[in-house]
Every structure is written in structure tokens, then in C-alpha cells.
């Protein structure tokens, strides 16, 4: 990306965030709380050294899912199936980790690889829907999430359930197979996601693969005319996207929850936060990554603000949506300001 491109993409971001914070402050003030205090708690809650690990722990899946959404988006493909891919990844990682015998490091590796491959394949399959059946990936990826969720939830609720607990969840991952803890809630899984993220950002910027993907995103007809093969390219992009989502699922299961639990991967809304980050960055993986981390800080800060000030969490959700809304409209806002 050129310097000018960077400025254009970043233009208005501080302005938009400020507007969001101002409006949020009004709402906080209206509910009889001190906005300044609330923001202070939010900032320390997200960024103070003790809390930074919480932010990092939350940023891992959000940034991962942002990347998973950004890569196909760069090629003009919208992957709405993150939830299904996440669940497939988490579930298969849990099953391998729990049931496959062998040296721990090998089992962990196998669990992660299995998660990536299965989720990647499931994601890539949507491309055939588009090229063979003319069902856009946007729709098929969204709809295919449901059978994936159904199958894994069924398996976790019945044949593979840990019968010593009252929830629908698999057996716990054996201690030595888990990803090791670096600090508090942060495991080596975060490092893994970070490494993959950096690789993806570099690949998008500096390789022929990234170049071809970008050109496809800007004009698919041009890409086809130039000899870039539509189907394999889409399959590659969707496979990578699904594999990253699968990796995120595996990292959560092996490094944080230590089980596959029905609902636990989806309810935090990592997929949607990630998608928003990717859309805000127009598919640019680096910006998507940064936006994902920003969202994670915002959300972690929101939890902290609720803890410290007892401002209900719904208010921090409202605040977050203001900031995202203004970020989405930043170009219009800036244009109006400076023609």
C-alpha cells in the first residue's frame, strides 16, 4: 500500500471515534453516570498492564475472524459462514485432542491441522455452489453454518458428551495436549494466530497470490480475462478463510475452554465482530487485523467498565455500536467536512 492509500484509508478514523465517544458520553450522562469516569475505567480495563492480557485473549479470536473475513473479501467474496467454520474447527480439535492417542505435541499439532483442514474444506465447498449451482457464496456459506452447527452440537450433546456434567460438552482436553499458557488467559494459541496473521498480511501485499486476489476483488471479469482461473482462486481464498476460522476454533478449544461446549464459540459473536472489522477495512488484511484488535479492546474495556462502575453492559454495547457506526460513515463525514 502506498503512503497516500494508507492516509485515505485511515482518514477520519480519529474523527469518527471521537464522535462515537461523544455521543456515547451523552447516553452515559443521561443514565446518571459520569462519562469521564466510565471512559477512564474502559481505557484502563482494556490497556492497563494487568488487563492487557484480557484484551489479547479476546483479540485473538476477533482478529483471527477479521482476517478470515478479510481474505475472501479482498477477492470480492463474502464469507458469512464463519460460525460454522469456527464450530467445525473447535469440534474437530476437541475430538482429536481427546480421543487420539500419541505424544502430546503431535496430538496437539494434529488437532490444529485437522481443525484447519476440515473447516477449510467445508468453507471451500461453498465455491462449488457458486460456480456449479449459481448459489452465491454469501448465501451458501451462511446457510451451511446451520448443518455444521447441528451436527457438532448433536455429537457433543449425545454420543460424545461428558456425562459427568450437566451441559452439552465433550470431555476435557487432557492437560498435556492443551496449548501452554503464556500469561493468564493468553496461550501459545495467540502467538499461533498472530504468526498466521502476519503471514497473511505479508502474502496479500507482496505475493502474486495477493495481487491476483486483489485484482479479482476489483474486477472479476478482468481477472478471468487475464487468465486467472476463477474457481481455483476462489477455492484457495475460501479454504484459507475457513482454515483460519478453524484455527481460531482450535485455539479457543485447546488454549482456553479445553472442551468443545455447545454455544460457547458462537455466542461471543467473534464472527460478526470480525466481519465488521473486515468490511470497515475493505478487506485489507492489515487494517482488518488492527480493527479487530481495536474492537477487542473496546469490548474488553466494556466488560471492565461494567465491573468497575456497575454501568450495565448494555450501555457499553450501545457505545460500541456508536463508534462502529461513525467509523462506517467516516468517509462521508470527512468529505462533508473537507471537500
Amino acid at each position, binding site marked *: 500500500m502506498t503512503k497516500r492509500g494508507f492516509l485515505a484509508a485511515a482518514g477520519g478514523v480519529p474523527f469518527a471515534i471521537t464522535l462515537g465517544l461523544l455521543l456515547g458520553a451523552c447516553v452515559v450522562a443521561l*443514565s446518571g453516570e459520569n462519562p469521564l469516569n466510565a471512559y477512564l475505567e474502559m481505557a484502563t480495563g482494556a490497556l492497563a498492564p494487568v488487563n492487557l492480557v484480557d484484551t489479547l485473549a479476546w483479540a485473538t479470536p476477533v482478529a483471527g475472524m477479521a482476517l478470515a473475513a478479510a481474505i475472501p473479501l479482498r477477492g470480492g467474496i463474502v464469507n458469512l459462514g464463519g460460525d460454522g467454520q469456527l464450530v467445525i474447527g473447535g469440534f474437530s480439535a476437541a475430538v482429536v485432542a481427546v480421543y487420539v492417542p500419541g505424544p502430546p505435541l503431535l496430538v496437539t499439532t494434529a488437532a490444529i491441522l485437522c481443525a484447519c483442514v476440515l473447516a477449510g474444506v467445508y468453507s471451500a465447498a461453498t465455491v462449488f*455452489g457458486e460456480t*456449479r*449451482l*449459481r*448459489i*452465491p457464496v*454469501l*448465501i*451458501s456459506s*451462511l*446457510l*451451511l453454518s*446451520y*448443518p455444521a*452447527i*447441528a*451436527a457438532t*452440537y*448433536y455429537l457433543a*450433546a*449425545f454420543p460424545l458428551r461428558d456425562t459427568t456434567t450437566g451441559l452439552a460438552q465433550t470431555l476435557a482436553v487432557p492437560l498435556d495436549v492443551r496449548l501452554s499458557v503464556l500469561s493468564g488467559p493468553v496461550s501459545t494459541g495467540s502467538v499461533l494466530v498472530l504468526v498466521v496473521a502476519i503471514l497473511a498480511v505479508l502474502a496479500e501485499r507482496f505475493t502474486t497470490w495477493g495481487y491476483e486476489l486483489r485484482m479479482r476483488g476489483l474486477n472479476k*471479469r478482468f481477472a*478471468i*480475462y487475464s487468465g486467472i482461473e*476463477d474457481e481455483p482462486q476462489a477455492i484457495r481464498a475460501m479454504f484459507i478463510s475457513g482454515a483460519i476460522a478453524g484455527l481460531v476454533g482450535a485455539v479457543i478449544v485447546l488454549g482456553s475452554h479445553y472442551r468443545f461446549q*455447545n454455544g460457547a464459540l458462537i455466542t461471543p459473536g467473534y464472527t*460478526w465482530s470480525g*466481519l*465488521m472489522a473486515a*468490511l*470497515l477495512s475493505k478487506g485489507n488484511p492489515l487494517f482488518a487485523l488492527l480493527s479487530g484488535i481495536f474492537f477487542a479492546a473496546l469490548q474488553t474495556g466494556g466488560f471492565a467498565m461494567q465491573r468497575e462502575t456497575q454501568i*450495565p453492559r*448494555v*450501555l457499553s*454495547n*450501545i457505545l*460500541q*455500536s*456508536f463508534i*462502529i*457506526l461513525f*467509523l*462506517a*460513515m467516516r*468517509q*462521508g*463525514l470527512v*468529505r*462533508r467536512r473537507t471537500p
Partner: protein
Amino acid sequence: MIFNMFTVGATVQAITPILLAALAASLCGRVGIFNIALEGQMLLGAFMAVVGSYFTGSAFLGVLIAMLSVVMFTSILAFGSTVFRGDSVIIGISMNLLAAGLTAYLLRQIFHVSGAFSDPGIVTLRKLRIPGIEHIPVIGWVLSRQTAITYLSWLLVAAVTFFLFRTATGLRLRGVGIDASAAESVGVRPDRYQISTVLFSGVLTGLAGAQLSLGTVGLFAEDMTAGRGWIAVVAVMLGRDHPLLSAIACVVFGVADAVSVQLQARGLPSQVSDAVPYVVTLLALAATSLRRTKRNRTRAALG
């Protein structure tokens, strides 16, 4: 358990909010704005309908207040995605987040409860009985004992279809969605049509929300839309922004859901039966696409 007048009636009733939301989204789609805020619009509508009904003691006023407030809420999408050049998907998703937060917050502020507000003071919408046809099997089951909003929703499907394809404003609206710059070049200002259409989607989703809270259960519960907005989004994708086709997709989905309950009662695990409507939808889509591709197998690789 088999289909009877109660389950058929409940299915029709369950389809109504999805249908109205799909109608709203298909209109937005026609002017080229992807409305993914349906979930939030409906949720706010459901809440404001309860507020209105509780404080005025009139279900009608409740519905009216729901529509008005959702229209105001929808101005975020209407102006955000046009004048302020925001991405409609991001705006839509954050509106959903906003509506969830706002309704939960207002629930505490207004009713001093959290979770759900259920009170005999909430005046619900009456189910209309149509004498005569009520006892005819199937037709009577479908057509009778529904709220006015349900009848209205099906009239609206017809009205919106007629409006889009027969009136001058409908033509302009479609044109704006096909190619905004072409519309602009003959002096039709795309922004105006987009803004008014999106705002109108607030009327429809407000109705949808009111039907959910006042027409179905007579209470408000946090996040009670529970994904209905997304189902409407899928229906509109299936119906390719055509109000009638989208309505059919809603019916297919609703019937599949009703069937999935029956399958559950016959021993299909609930985790699996939950996916039935989506799988049916996907298969229906694949089947129609397959037929279409067969018909024009001969086409250039460049679509």
C-alpha cells in the same frame, strides 16, 4: 401430532413478522441498499409496541408508536448508507447491536425489570375471527384467527408488488437500484428514493416487531427476535429482491420450521431438527438454480 387448525394457524402467525421484514428488505434491495438491520428494527418495534400499548392502553396506538420509532431508528441506515456513504452491512450489523442494547437499557429504565416484561396491562392485538370460513379445514385454519397485521402483511405483499411493477414511483425505485447513475442522468435523484424507501422499511419492520410482541405473545423479552431478521435476509436473497418470490421463500421456511417441530416430536434430535429449515432452504435454492442452469447451459464464461 399432525397438522391441525392450531398448528397451521400458529405457522401462519409465525411467518408474519418474517414476511414483513422480508418485504422491507426486498424494497431496500430494489433501491440497491442491502438491509441487514432487520433484526434490530424488529426488536425495537417489538419493544416500542409494548411500551405504547402499556401506556396508552391501546394496541393500535402501540403499533403506531412502534412504526414511528422504528422509522426514526431506521434513519441511521437511510442517511448513513446514502448521504454519509457508509457500508450498509456494517451499519446494519451495528444497528442490530444498538437495538439490542437500547431495548435492554430502556427495559430497565422504563419498566425497572431486566430480561422480560410481561404484564396484564399490555393490551395485545385481537385475533380476528372470520365467520363462515373459520370451520373450513385448511383454508379456514390458514385464514382465520389471525391478527389484523397478518392479513395486512399479505395485502402488503400484493400492494408492494403492484407498486414496484406498475407505478411510476415503483419504476424509478427499481431503476435507482439497477443503476443509480443512469437514474441521476435523467434527473431522478437516487438518494431521495433510497432514503424514502429505507425509511419505509422502518414502517414494515415496525409492524413486524409489533406482531411479534403484541400479536403473538403479549410480552417483550430481550433479543426476542432471535434471528428472524436473518431468516428474512436469506428469504430476500432467495427471492432475488422480488417481493412475491421472497414471500414464497418465507412460507417455505415457515412450513419447514413447522415440519421440523413435528420431526422433533417423532424422535429427530432437536439439534438436527433446528437445521432443517435452513437445509430445506438451501436445497430449494439448489434445485431452482439447477433448473435455471440447465435451461441456459449455453453461456459465456464471463457472467
